């Protein structure tokens, strides 16, 4: 929409002679910081990490080409890598749908509130600004099987009180719960989307006799599906790279039975955590993670064509 309706001061003949217009030059200059950063901190590292993944590299000696050896070891001869993969997928499968569902639920509730909506919105958002290290400490405490707040509440209600931070089975749910507390970010994005659904659509649906559920399913959901897709996609990419919670709530090896050993933690351990840099091996882990993330993202985009509704005529 940034059309320039005025005639520019340069005469037509002069503009023709120049290979690049002043405006284009200014455009390239203005995006040059990003372009430079893209080359130096994204493009080159992306390819470099592919190269390193075929080498053995300890930073002190120069990289030694080993072909597919790192990948072969990772996939056939490494006990921890499949475990880290499994842990990460299990976590993401629990965390992402739950996060999307609960933040949508919270947004729907807030959207119904006619008074004090701003106050509730602030309260619900507050945990999202808490540093992850502090949240992690807070939740190992709250979910402490003996003295923790949650289990005291559960016992009070005569409900079963799981060994959250101790039993390997409950470790991932523990992290998921701590992440649900910080749902504020996605909730606020969804709330804004809900507010943009045009009211006449609801009125039309209501006049056609659509009940509450039908109005939600056939008006609200299609109208916010683009934003839901955004929240789910970004949420998935982040969940697959979970690190801080596992590392701080438990330890770099992932706590009891290494149940919180996630891919990035394993990558970190191999690259930085053992005293010797295993950069080649870690780069191979990074590339496998990259391929997984890209595959899942592409799959989500494909799938989105079936359920995401885009208004026609969107200018961007």
């Amino acid at each position, binding site marked *: 929409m940034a059309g320039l309706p005025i005639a520019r*001061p340069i005469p037509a003949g002069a503009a023709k002679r120049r290979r690049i217009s002043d405006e284009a030059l200014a455009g390239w200059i203005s995006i040059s910081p990003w372009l430079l950063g893209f080359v130096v901190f994204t493009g080159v590292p992306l390819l470099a990490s592919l190269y390193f993944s075929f080498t053995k590299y300890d930073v002190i000696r120069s990289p030694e080409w080993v072909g597919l050896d790192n990948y072969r070891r990772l996939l056939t001869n490494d006990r921890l890598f499949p475990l880290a993969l499994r842990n990460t997928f299990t976590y993401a499968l629990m965390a992402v749908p739950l996060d999307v569902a609960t933040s949508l639920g919270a947004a729907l509730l807030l959207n119904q509130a006619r008074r004090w909506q701003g106050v509730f919105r602030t309260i619900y958002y507050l945990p999202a*600004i*808490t540093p992850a290290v502090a949240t992690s400490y807070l939740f190992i405490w709250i979910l402490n099987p003996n003295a923790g707040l949650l289990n005291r509440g559960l016992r009070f209600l005569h409900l079963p009180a799981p060994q959250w931070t101790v039993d390997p089975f409950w470790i991932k749910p523990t992290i998921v719960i701590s992440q649900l507390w910080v749902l504020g*970010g996605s909730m606020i994005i969804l709330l804004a989307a809900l507010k943009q659904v045009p009211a006449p659509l609801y009125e039309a649906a209501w006049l056609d006799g659509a009940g509450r559920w039908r109005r939600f399913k056939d008006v609200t959901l299609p109208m916010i599906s683009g934003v839901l897709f955004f929240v789910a996609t970004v949420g998935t990419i982040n969940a697959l*790279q979970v690190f801080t919670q596992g590392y701080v709530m438990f330890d770099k090896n992932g706590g009891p039975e290494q149940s919180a050993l996630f891919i990035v933690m394993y990558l970190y351990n191999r690259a930085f955590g053992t005293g010797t840099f295993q950069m080649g091996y870690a780069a191979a882990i990074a590339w496998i993670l990259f391929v997984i993330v890209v595959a899942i993202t592409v799959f989500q985009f494909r799938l989105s064509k079936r359920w995401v509704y885009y208004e026609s005529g969107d200018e961007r």
Partner: protein
Amino acid sequence: MAVIVDAAARPLTVPRVTAPRPPRQRPTAAAGQFLLYVVLFALSALFLLPFAWLVLTSLKPPDEVFDPGWIPSPWYPQNYADVFANAPVGRWLRNSLIVAVLGVVSVVFSSSLVAYGFARLRFRGKKQLFALVMATYLLPQMVTLIPTFLIWNRLGAVNTFYPLWAGNLFGSAFYIFMLRQFLFTIPQDLVDAARIDGAGYFRIYWSIMLPLIKPALAVVAVFEFQAKWNDFFLPLIYVNRTELYTMALGLASFKDEYETQWALWMAASVILTLPMMLLFFLAQRFLVEGVATTGLKG
């Protein structure tokens, strides 16, 4: 003119459509609202209680941390003094502040300049390049981690603050996208008038665009301040001398250093969190709407 400027100066306001209110008002509607507020208050408790509990626990005497009661008896603010006495917390806070401020200043200028190019200037290949910007937003950061570390290592920048903030000099996809949205809303008439007065493209960026998107820049500044203040991963990778720790990394080290001194952990957690709370309340109005705009048109 004044009207235009004024309208453009507040591009943060999301157009508010009144909440859907079907023209039916029965007694059940009142009951529904009542139930709604019961749920809203219950959820508020879920979100707030952990904070209350964190603060109260940080004020308990160390040997009473495990007691079931919420209220410390006696109140024991000494924990905070102990945190400062045991660890170089003042230094860590200062380090966090330096990294956050440098990160904010560099990302605000770089991202707004790049966004200006993408939003308001015409050049060939722009569309494709912007698609690339968005692709980098979805790119998992971990893929580039190791070569990036090796670059900083080669530059001798490990155990300095540069790796923690200098990447911001090149803009950040998320903010570029967001600021571009805001720059679209600035009326072209203003630019045309400035062009006629002889202003160049960068003069327009500096004297027209930047002042008009100040609220959006404030959002970027606050987001980035939080991101840098809260960041744990980069300091963990790049900084391993205690005196260079940021507060987040320093707090994480409490777990190993003061293994069972929970009161200290809690007090240090409050120290780390409090500045973010203050910042949030100061910038609240901008922030919430700033987050809201990011997902739209995604």
